[in-house]
């Protein structure tokens, strides 16, 4: 290869401020084999790309080097331009003289010299470059959605409506998630169940959706377009195919006083139960830890009364393997419960709030259940301790969230709005009651949100006190709330009948373990990380896995649904092609030299390396060698660095290229 073109970018002033780009271009032109060099203010712009294309044609270039920013930013842009000009895109490389040079140096002369060196060695790499062809892999047009809350439901319905098969896996006995627990939703105050339950029914009835409730992800193998997911179906102890959902088993169950998780422990349920009357599927499950039959072997009432004979005490957990091409993760959130401090939790608790010891201090989700028509009080606001109607209710915002000293520094995003909603619901139901809110700031940046908050304050007359609460204690049947009002600069004491804490939004339990199974990344709070905060907000860094809803960070319903539909759209984009093109920068094994030590297999983070048998014509085993599955290989090069016999190489980063680069200096 001998006709290389070098294009040096100013990046506005990002590079040219510190590096003399004209000199770099001039020096590049003097490197043997460089047929053309130039500089331009914005190489990535349309005129910049045109310049590149024209030069390829005019100077018959057979290799291109763009000295500009990081290849992460614009490698694709320039490779596309080179391709348009008739070159193989992998004969176009980038020299990073911005992040690696202009941004990190101040001395113009030295930075210019360094830029020249970077260009010089990259020219050698271009010289030794080879044309590469994209790898194609088949796509299984079937999607897996993990989590059956509003995010999972929306994503599943969107993909299913587009004509693709969807497997929806939910670990609880019913889909619906937190949204099914809510009373009314902001900012329109429409009933959550009324908009949620029809969607749940749609999921159950959709011909393209396979619904697995009471199931968990056991193992994930494969790669984009070709995942094999092992799903564990926990024993329901009720045969779904026989159960008619009549509910006789639940009414006859002698054990009825088990705190109902769906009602935040405030309602009661039997040992054989559906989480709530509108559950989908309407098939009960036996809670084996609380069931007399499982604990002592004496009872069996539900089996006796079950007409279709669906109760099966012998049922075992089963596994199925699902082949899917894409995965949407929608595992949602939980609320931080301040009295329980699980091992390893970063939260230090709020001992002085008395949560857990004073029954009338509850969290936001419990208030939702109190206000919900399907809740333990039938929608009446009654306090847990004595069932009286509370006349003074104190709401406290930012409990656990935005508190660096307590361990969680992020804003939980939804609490300002749901607390405003709570004050409204309360005033609508208790006309002579008064709601107080302790808050730091009101964060209401959504369509119609600020108007909603103002309505709570101005029309519904919730008293907003800017300041935090220091402690609460019981005095008689009241809760004394001691706080501060920083606008008036005084201490405040309110005698409340009920206190509602807006506690922090946290990822679901086990979010980190699921991420490890999926091979996706998560932050220090266990929220899943998107590939790019702005440009790839629903993709994971792992190809073929998408995020929807609060598993990625606190989100309200509109945002969650939008993201779920976006994730579905990404799945459909993937499914639009029969074959998937993948970057050909993958490792290849030289089978002649490979001794089959499989050191590469041990270090491969992607699980891309397999063992391959080499046999002679008689079918006798000659030796075992490594084989790289190009569909799985991430192109990281760890195997290449590890291989003791130098028989594994990454295309585009061959030993020959690296040596040539070193020798150029």
């Amino acid at each position, binding site marked *: 290869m001998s006709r290389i073109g070098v294009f040096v970018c100013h990046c506005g002033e990002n590079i040219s401020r510190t590096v003399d780009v004209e000199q770099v271009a001039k020096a590049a032109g003097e490197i043997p084999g460089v047929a053309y060099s130039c500089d331009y203010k914005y190489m990535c712009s349309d005129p910049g790309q045109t310049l590149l294309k024209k030069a390829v044609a005019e100077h018959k270039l057979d290799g291109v080097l763009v000295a500009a920013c990081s290849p992460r930013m614009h490698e694709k842009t320039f490779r596309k331009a080179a391709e348009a000009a008739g070159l193989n895109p992998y004969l176009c490389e980038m020299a990073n003289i911005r992040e690696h040079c202009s941004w990190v140096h101040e001395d113009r002369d030295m930075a210019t010299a360094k830029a020249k060196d970077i260009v010089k060695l990259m020219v050698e790499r271009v010289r030794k470059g080879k044309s590469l062809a994209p790898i194609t892999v088949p796509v299984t047009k079937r999607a897996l959605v993990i989590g059956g809350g509003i995010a999972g439901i929306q994503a599943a319905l969107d993909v299913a409506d587009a004509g693709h098969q969807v497997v929806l896996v939910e670990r609880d006995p019913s889909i619906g998630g937190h949204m099914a627990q809510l009373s009314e939703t902001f900012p329109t105050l429409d009933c959550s169940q009324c908009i949620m339950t029809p969607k749940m029914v749609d999921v159950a009835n959709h011909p393209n959706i396979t619904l697995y409730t009471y199931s968990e992800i056991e193992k994930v193998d494969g790669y984009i377009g070709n995942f094999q997911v092992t799903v564990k179906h926990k024993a329901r102890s009720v045969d779904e195919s026989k159960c008619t959902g009549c509910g006789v088993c639940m009414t006859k169950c002698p054990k009825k006083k088990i705190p109902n998780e769906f009602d935040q422990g405030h309602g009661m349920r039997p040992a054989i139960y559906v989480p709530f009357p509108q559950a989908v599927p309407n098939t009960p499950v036996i809670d084996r830890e609380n069931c007399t039959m499982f604990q002592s072997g004496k009872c069996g009432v539900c089996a006796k009364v079950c007409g279709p004979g669906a109760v099966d005490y012998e049922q075992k957990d089963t596994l199925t393997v699902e082949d899917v091409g894409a995965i949407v993760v929608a595992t949602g959130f939980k609320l931080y419960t301040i009295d329980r401090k699980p091992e390893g939790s970063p939260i230090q*608790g*709020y*001992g*002085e709030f008395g949560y857990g*010891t004073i029954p009338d201090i509850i969290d936001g989700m419990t208030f939702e259940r109190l206000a919900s028509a399907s809740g333990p009080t039938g929608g009446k606001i009654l306090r847990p301790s004595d069932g009286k109607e509370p006349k003074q209710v104190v709401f406290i915002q930012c409990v656990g969230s935005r508190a660096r000293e307590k361990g969680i520094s992020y804003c939980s995003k939804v609490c300002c709005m749901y607390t405003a909603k709570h004050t409204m619901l309360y005033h609508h139901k208790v006309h002579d009651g008064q709601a107080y809110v302790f808050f730091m700031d009101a964060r209401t940046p959504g369509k119609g949100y600020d108007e909603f908050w103002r309505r709570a304050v101005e029309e519904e007359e919730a008293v907003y006190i800017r300041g935090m609460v220091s402690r609460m204690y019981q005095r*008689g*049947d009241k809760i004394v709330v001691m706080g501060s009002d920083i606008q008036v600069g005084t201490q405040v004491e309110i005698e409340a009948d009920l206190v509602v804490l807006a506690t922090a939004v946290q990822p679901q339990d086990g979010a980190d373990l699921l991420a490890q199974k999926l091979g996706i990344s998560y932050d220090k709070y266990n929220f899943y990380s998107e590939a790019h905060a702005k440009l790839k907000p629903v993709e994971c860094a792992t190809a073929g896995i998408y995020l929807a809803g609060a598993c990625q960070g606190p989100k309200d319903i509109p945002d969650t649904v939008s993201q779920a539909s976006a994730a579905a759209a990404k799945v459909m984009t993937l499914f639009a092609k029969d074959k998937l093109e993948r970057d050909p920068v993958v490792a290849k094994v030289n089978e002649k030299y490979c001794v089959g030590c499989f050191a590469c297999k041990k270090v491969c983070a992607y699980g891309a390396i397999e063992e391959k048998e080499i046999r002679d014509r008689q079918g006798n085993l000659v030796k075992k060698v490594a084989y790289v599955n190009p569909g799985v290989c991430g192109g990281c090069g760890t195997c290449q660095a590890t291989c003791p016999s130098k028989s594994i190489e990454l295309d585009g980063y061959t030993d020959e290229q690296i040596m040539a680069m070193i020798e150029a200096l």
Partner: protein
Amino acid sequence: MTPGKKRLSYSYYPGCSLHASGREYDISTRALFKALNVGLKEVPDWFCCGATPAHNVDELLSLSLCAKNLSLAEEVEGDLAVACAACFSRLKTTQHHLKEDDSKRKQVEVAIDGPAALNKPVKHIMEILAREYGLAKLEESVKKPLLGLKVAPYYGCLLTRPPEVPELDDCEDPSIMEDLLRALGAEPVKWSHRMECCGANFTLSRPGVVLKLSNAILESARIAGADCIMVACPLCHGNLDIRQKEIKEAYGAPDSTLFGNIFGSELHGGSAPDQRDLPIFYVTQLAALAMGVASESLGFESVITDPKPLLRDKQLL
């Protein structure tokens, strides 16, 4: 003492209160440690830690006073045992600040003409009793369990706060006093004001503030059904014990609407919260009593609110 096991032994910083208004805290501490066979050797030539006035006036002075005491304590073997909550807080605060701030440490070392003993472990006697001597062993050592005695354990503001300094217990929900009381056979009551401030800083300058705060503490202890209050600070003791008469005069009969009557009616056999005298005990007085130390050597005669009727009533004297 198990053979081969080293006898626990501490250097001891009593602080000025314990040699003056809080003498009974000092003598009961010594009596208790003797009864438990734990060594206690007073730091020679110690002086005032500056308590609350010094750090309000001059930070360098307050740090230097404590740093000097710490370096004197280095001369006596064993971790430094401190009984007074204010001394404990100041000594720990000094170590904390000087460890964090090198330039301050250098200034202080010039002032005290020597190195500051920043690594001398400073321990509150409750820490020693509950964690080092051990609750189980303490329970075993009890000769006269404090059965039937309902005690309101009072932490006050200095023992656990600010959380990074004393490292004694959870700053919002401590339990060390309750644990100790249970080990001694007494019944710790659940009450609301166990960590409120008694107003000690204002005891001379704004007595009105002190009366208000101390009244709230005494009231809530009575409502919770306590027979007495247990403290670990001579300043708290001063306010709660000496001022009871003054508080009664200032506040009269308690406002029954203020506290509701749920607790009152249940716990006092139908009577509303009263203005019973509440004896204020030091943690060491109660512990020593349970260890069978003679009451004559616990300083009961030098307090204002006489605890003897209560103790006789509970057959503890």
